[in-house]
């Protein structure tokens, strides 16, 4: 795979992945003459092609090229976008795209889900095919862009760009109240992100005032590394960080439906077409969490630590509130929507626990939630296409006629309530572990903000999750057969149980759930270094970031071998600290020991370059 990395394709893989769908969408808009059938095939083909390129990107990323530390950004492409020559402060806004351990999994999730969503909506969409598939591809491109953007302005552009296609998707092909839902969704999210944009501008401006960065020049740019540098060099006072955090919080908290700001989600979900709500649930909610992880945490460390307990409380409230509200729902889609509120509460809790397990758990949670909730929406959509109702009162005992659908629904329901062996459990357990041990993070000086007080109520989420999900499964699948008034609608050419197409849509997701559940190690190995360097290393105040980080391993071993009577169980994990090969250990070297040129004007955050 190496040879590919150096060719033209290798260098521009990310741009291809991002712009292929967008160009295809433009082409689709112009092709007025095409039959719906060829439009569908074209859209599916393009999205599968994007998936192929995304996988290619993964292979290149993984093919460990020497000289790049694991957590560094790879597949980087950089070209000037808006450049203005000004005598003192040149403007340099770049099309700066790259991907690292955090962005890649989400990129792959998007690349996997959109083709499935498109393929899943073949029978669901009966009119205006051209616009529908063009908008879907547009949305696809925009989402991919968000996860690769390295320039804050580019990030914001893509972040906003995703709103427009979805507004039309919900507005035109939605359910009965689609207009209200689309408006609420659009205005709600937009008003939030206006504040974020203010924050972005302020940051850019602040960064332009100071000659930070290797070249020591003052330049007005939104480059993420430079902005990270801003906080790292301590130029942002706590007060500014607070305000910036609140600005970012407004934009991202609405996107991640954090507890009080989530009322748009159930409305948007119930009114969106199947594919729309799949993409909305699986990827768009992750923009918010990704935003927090990529922007709020590394750029505003002190504020994030200070505000983490508040966000923790909101997240826990979201978990319990979402679960309880889900339980009383009559409409299945609303139930799944509220379950997403509850799940993303977990995700944020894990993120703000600032414990490595918590962070890994939260990134893994984003991927898992995407898979399981996306699949749930697909299945609910399939029921809707057959019975044109989502009311639980009208449906019952479907397992009798639709055994395959029953199998898939149960599998995905179990995955979303965190049954071990499926993907939900891994991330849920890590998040709880992280929150539990948050204040016990290895560094003596640095105490994580959350603790047991947050973990115990969050753990009740496991219980509440099981309640509402099994309530739904019980009502829909088991019990005596009950079909809505007009019975099974075969006009759309759907057989009673799932058609091969629908099975084809759900199988990859099922395999994904099982694989991530049983053996998540490769995914974790991609995320861990990136999280460690991009987020945690930047969060830890300087004085405690010294070697203490690695003292634990010795103390840990020493504590275990107290009295010699019991030989250390060589296989047990406590001892696998020395099981790691020496080379691997070197790569785990504390950050500041690694040979690297350091900017002469080192300040208190010098360690974390």
């Amino acid at each position, binding site marked *: 795979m190496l040879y590919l990395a150096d060719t033209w394709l290798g260098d521009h893989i990310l741009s291809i992945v991002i712009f292929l769908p967008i160009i295809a969408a433009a082409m689709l808009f112009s092709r007025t003459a095409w039959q719906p059938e060829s439009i569908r095939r074209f859209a599916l083909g393009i999205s599968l092609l994007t998936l192929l390129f995304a996988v290619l990107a993964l292979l290149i990323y993984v093919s460990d090229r020497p000289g790049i530390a694991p957590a560094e950004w790879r597949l980087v492409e950089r070209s000037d976008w808006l450049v203005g020559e000004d005598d003192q402060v040149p403007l340099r806004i770049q099309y700066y795209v790259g991907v690292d351990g955090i962005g890649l999994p989400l990129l792959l999730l998007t690349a996997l889900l959109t083709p499935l969503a498109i393929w899943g909506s073949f029978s669901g969409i009966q009119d205006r095919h051209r616009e529908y598939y063009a908008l879907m591809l547009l949305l696809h491109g925009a989402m991919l862009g968000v996860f690769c953007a390295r320039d804050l302005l580019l990030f914001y552009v893509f972040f906003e760009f995703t709103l427009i296609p979805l507004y039309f998707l919900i507005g035109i092909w939605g359910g009965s109240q689609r207009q209200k839902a689309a408006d609420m969704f659009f205005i709600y999210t937009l008003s939030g992100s206006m504040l974020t944009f203010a924050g972005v501008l302020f940051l850019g401006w602040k960064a332009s005032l100071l000659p930070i960065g290797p070249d020591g020049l003052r330049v007005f740019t939104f480059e993420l590394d430079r902005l990270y540098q801003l906080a790292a060099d301590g130029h942002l006072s706590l007060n500014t960080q607070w305000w910036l955090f609140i600005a970012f919080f407004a934009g991202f908290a609405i996107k991640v439906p954090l507890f009080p700001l989530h009322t748009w989600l159930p409305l948007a979900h119930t009114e969106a077409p199947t594919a729309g709500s799949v993409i909305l649930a699986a990827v768009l909610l992750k923009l918010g969490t990704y935003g927090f992880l990529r922007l709020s945490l590394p750029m505003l460390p002190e504020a994030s630590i200070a505000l983490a307990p508040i966000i923790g409380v909101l997240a826990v409230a979201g978990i319990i509130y979402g679960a309880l509200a889900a339980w009383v729902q009559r409409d299945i889609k609303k139930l799944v929507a509220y379950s997403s509120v509850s799940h993303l509460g977990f995700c944020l809790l894990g993120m703000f626990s600032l414990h490595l397990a918590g962070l890994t758990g939260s990134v893994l949670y984003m991927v898992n939630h995407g898979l399981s909730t996306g699949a749930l929406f697909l299945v609910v959509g399939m029921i809707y296409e057959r019975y044109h109702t989502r009311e639980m009162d009208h449906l019952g005992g479907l397992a009798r006629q639709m055994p395959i659908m029953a199998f898939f629904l149960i599998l995905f329901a179990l995955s979303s309530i965190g049954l071990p062996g499926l993907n939900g459990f891994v991330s849920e357990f*890590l998040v709880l572990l992280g929150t539990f041990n948050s204040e016990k993070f290895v560094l003596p000086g640095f105490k994580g903000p959350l603790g047991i007080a947050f973990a115990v109520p969050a*753990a009740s989420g496991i219980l509440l999750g099981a309640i509402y999900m099994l309530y739904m499964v019980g009502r829909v699948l088991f019990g005596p057969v009950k079909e809505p008034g007009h019975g099974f609608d075969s006009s759309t050419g759907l057989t009673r149980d799932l058609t091969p197409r629908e099975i084809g849509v759900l199988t990859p997701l099922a395999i994904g759930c099982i694989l991530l559940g049983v053996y998540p190690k490769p995914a974790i190995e991609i995320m861990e270094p990136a999280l460690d360097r991009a987020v945690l290393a930047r969060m830890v105040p300087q004085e405690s970031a010294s070697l203490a980080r690695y003292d634990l391993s010795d103390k840990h071993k020493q504590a275990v071998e107290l009295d010699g009577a019991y030989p250390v169980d060589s296989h047990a994990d406590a001892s696998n600290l020395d099981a790691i090969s020496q080379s691997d250990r070197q790569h785990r070297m504390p950050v500041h020991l690694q040979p690297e040129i350091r900017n002469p004007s080192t300040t208190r955050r010098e360690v974390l370059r």
Partner: protein
Amino acid sequence: MAILIPLLPLAGAALVGLIGLRGLRARSHWLVILPVAASLYLAVQLYFQVQASTQACAHGVRQMFESFTIYQWMLAGPDSWLNVSFRVDPLTCVMLLTVLIVSFLVIIYSVGYMRDHHGHAERGYERFFAFLAIFVFSMCTLVLAGNFLVLYVGWELVGLSSYLLIGFYYQRPAAAAAAKKAFLVNRIGDFGFGLGILLIYYTFGTLEYANVFRMIQAGVTVEGVPLESARVTTIALLLFCGAMGKSAQLPLHVWLPDAMEGPTPVSALIHAATMVTAGVYMVARCHIIFAASPYAMWIVATIGAATALFAATIALTQFDMKRILAYSTLSQLGYMFLALGVSAFDSAIFHLFTHAFFKALLFLGAGSVMHAMAGEIDVRRFGGLRKSMPITHATFLIGGLALAGFPFLAGFWSKDEIIHAAFESDMPWLAWVAVVTAWLTAFYTFRMIYMAFYGRERLPEGVEHAHESGAWMSLPLVILSIGAIGAGYLGVTIHRGGFAGIFEPHGAFHDFLSRNFGRPEVSHEGGGHLLMYVSSLIALWGIATAWYFYRRRPTIPMAIALVAGPVYRLLYHKYYVDEVYDRVFVRPLRKVGEICYDLDRYLINGVLWLITLVPRGIGFGLRRWQQGAMQGYALGMVVGLVVVLWWMLMTT
């Protein structure tokens, strides 16, 4: 090699799941029987291996077996991975053997059971075997687990398979509700269990059995800080909370009687022999944790005894055969937890071992009766099946005797040990509770036997004659009855001067387990024997009263029922526990949910509506200005012009 044991049934389940759909439905049971048989063979191999290795090392030293890592699963810290690791030691072997033997026999039994009266396989036949195989897989994983994480995985998977199996007849709303209830109550237990595991990681920085136990013994946490006992007690109680959920102890027992909605082989396998004993196994596995906190031990013992008595009293008044057996299981589990509470770990496991045999036997017997009575299980509707179903009657009688604690049968030896240990421990009053329960057990068991098998032959409507069930069903019954008799003698040594001249408690079984639990000081003075005679007398007395009540004077039970009206009704309605739970927990939680949803719709949307009022207000204000007349606009323009002009002139 140990990895294969759980994987074979899983492979079987997957195979059945995939190919079950095409044609082979009726014969798909072989796809499950063969892997389970292979696992059983491997388990026996493992037993001999462990047996050999224990001979080698020094006698009596609590020797920790190696647990080997299969693969690194999750990342829990900068460099510490949580692994999937298995562990084989005497306790695991015993549990594996119990689980696999009973599973094997139950699967053979269900080949016959799951067929309708003219021999064709029922609907969803292959689905049933797939679920059974999943259950065997998860139970083996649970037993073989090398750290708390894999234990939790097995724990939840076992809960899942019980959900799937109880809800097998999903058309019946009662079955669906029972399945949901079982899973949710288990989930409540798992909630506590999960917190316990997290606390363990929080305290010891690892989830491996070996390291955790070593640190507890050393009395130190991962940071070297001395371990305060409150922390250990909390961990123990949280773990016990999981055990209560899984083994249906007092507060969380409500799901087990309802779980009888599932097919009888399921009740036999899961709700008698294997799954419900998972809690006992877990407490036995973590005996070091429990032993470290006397307060936790006291709670375990008390709850055990309480459940035993509570369940036994309810069983007196039930008429549904399977429900009686369910309550008897509850009560026997209470015994096991009592044994664990008084730190007689090996006798608890011994009782578990013997109980698995005779309780599975009883359930399968009830199943074959149910099969013959075309699904009717209410004891009042039929009777006198002694002659028409000889094998079932004989095996059922053996099981009943073993359960009642009739001397020389398995139940007697194990139950007696527990009562003996209870007397010796510092909680003698629990022992007396155990003795009373023993009597009750003997009574309700034989009440059931007499009502079902003795007296005139009565058959429910629609059943012409009660036929004996086929070979597939009878064979396991016979094997289990042999087990019910023989299993007891494993735990007894032949020694002159013991009970009835030749028997002494603590036989080979306990030596085998001593590697795990260490060798308690063996007391050989007479007390043991006296107690044996006393308990056998109690058993006989119970049986006699049952005979007297239901054979000699059938009118007496009705009389007692009338006299003790309210008490009888209380017992019959299971102390109204279900209704209380519903009103105290379920309904309020649902109401809170409603409040949340309304809060969502009105409060938050209301606030949003208020916020949108501002732009609407401004919009309305401006509207009044736009009258639409051209001159109005022209005037505006000119005024603007003039103002600008004026401003420009003035400022220059």
